[in-house]
């Protein structure tokens, strides 16, 4: 019986390519499984070959027309500083969109993550349903949400903010339920044995444990959202993206350079502030 079980556990690979039999000097025998590297490399090469065919990859084009790249890039790296005043307003719009989107998304994400963690919610169907919902929220890119929502709510920042909220809820709730599932459940059990209901017990016993992670996740989302919301305007959802679309359409790449430079400085500053807050928390 035990022999059978071990037989079953050998991976398919080792049954096809029998392990190498080595007899040691002292008479013991050792089985060395065959290396999987050749198989992995062959599969990888096959995938790459199919992908090259499917995408029409052509190295010659890059070499021959590569100079075109420098035409635009050199303009982007010589930003038109006089364009700065027109960047300010959309920039503030972008930041506001991501701030509101992040705060609202994180607040909605918290209860959903509690419902999606298997150690708090013992009701299997609702657990799986919430997780499925969260996966769907994450799997559609923000820009697609934004392009649908601009049709529903009209062009402007509202559609963009809703798109950010949906994306934030999906990602925050996932990160959070993964950390909720690793916390120490003893305080929670002690609370419930005293007669506290699930919510009370969670709030007192689990919240202090996950709060640092929660804030960390929210800050991470904020960083992501500032980057994401800067291009949402490309489909008309407000913010810097509107300028990006307009300026690339007009081929005014110096102005585009200014937009990107401002974005770069803002993202960099936000990263610095977030790192500072993180070091304070931990």
């Amino acid at each position, binding site marked *: 019986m035990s022999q059978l079980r071990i037989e079953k556990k050998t991976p398919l690979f080792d049954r096809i390519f029998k392990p190498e039999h080595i007899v040691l000097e002292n008479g013991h025998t050792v089985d060395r499984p065959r290396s999987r590297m050749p198989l992995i490399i062959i599969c990888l090469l096959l*995938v*790459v070959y*199919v*992908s*090259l065919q*499917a*995408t*029409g*990859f*052509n190295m010659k*084009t*890059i070499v021959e*027309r*590569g100079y*075109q*790249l420098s*035409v*635009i*890039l050199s303009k*982007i790296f010589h930003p038109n500083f006089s364009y700065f005043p027109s960047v300010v307003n959309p920039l503030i*719009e972008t*930041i*506001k*969109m991501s*701030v*509101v989107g992040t*705060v*609202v998304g994180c607040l909605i994400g918290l209860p959903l993550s509690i419902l999606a963690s298997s150690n708090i919610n013992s009701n299997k169907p609702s657990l799986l349903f919430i997780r499925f919902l969260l*996966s*769907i929220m*994450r*799997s*559609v*890119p*923000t*820009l*697609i949400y934004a*392009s*649908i929502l601009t*049709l*529903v*709510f*009209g062009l*402007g*920042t*509202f559609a963009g*903010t809703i798109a950010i909220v949906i994306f934030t809820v999906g990602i925050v709730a996932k990160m959070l339920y993964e950390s909720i599932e690793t916390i120490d459940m003893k305080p929670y059990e002690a609370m419930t044995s005293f007669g506290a209901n699930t919510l009370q017990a969670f709030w007192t016993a689990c919240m202090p444990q996950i709060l640092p992670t929660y804030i960390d996740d929210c800050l991470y989302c904020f960083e992501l959202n500032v*980057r994401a919301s*800067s*291009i949402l305007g*490309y*489909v008309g959802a*407000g913010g810097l993206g509107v300028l*990006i679309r307009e300026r*690339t359409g007009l081929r005014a790449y110096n102005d*585009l350079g200014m937009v*990107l430079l401002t974005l*770069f400085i803002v*993202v*960099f500053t936000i990263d610095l502030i977030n790192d500072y807050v993180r070091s304070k928390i931990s």
Partner: protein
Amino acid sequence: MTVLEQLQAEPKNLWKRVLIFIVLLFIVAWGSSTIEYNGLTAKGTGIAYGIIYGIFHPNKALLFDMSDAGVPYLVLQTIAIAVLGTIFGAILAIPVSFLASTNIVPKPVAYFFRALILMIRTIPSMIWALVWIRVTGPGAFCGVVTQSICSIGMISKMYITAIEDLDTGILESLDAAGCNTFEKIRVGILPQLSAGFISTAIYRFDINLKDATTLGIVGAGGIGSPLVQSITYGRWSNVGAFLLALIILVLIIEYASTRIRSRLARGQ
């Protein structure tokens, strides 16, 4: 100490909580000042209904159409873009990240390459696509080149952490055992890095797959451009078919990548 005393000994930070609440409220109020709700557009409800209808009634002909415009081919193309973009990005990131690690090269060189990585990361992938389209013309090829460049940013950042955590003590013991430089790299450095590098690449593949859809909007191939076109023209059953394919694809890849990465982390 009785339970009551313990309860009273708990730090009183009510004012702190109220302050945090007020600050949050203030931020949201400040932020919402530009976000105005103009109500639904004239066709808004119809569109919302159309989307929901489309998802439950996807265009089946499109879903199983084997030609260039069908869903299977577009999904394959999206995967191909992400695969190539990730592989090229992961390979290009190796020299960059070694040159940006403070324990390999002098600090000024490392900081120069870090600035380069930061620059690549900050420019949105869409802009890269717009820049590359001039070189390659619209199509999946543009998506591949764009993702190869964009991936360098994030992948290098993770590679650098792995490289800076290298245990160099092992190299000394290999020296003592009489290994040459090639052997030292083969058995001393590669095993330490390979798991982390592969795990990073697979994680990036996840991201690239979603990004490939977004890039389609500016004309860089994949499932994105037909999806956005169907949205603007209001062909909801087509939108449903594309969205359904996209969601299933992302879910499968996410599941597989999580499985592989957790196996790599456990060292199998």
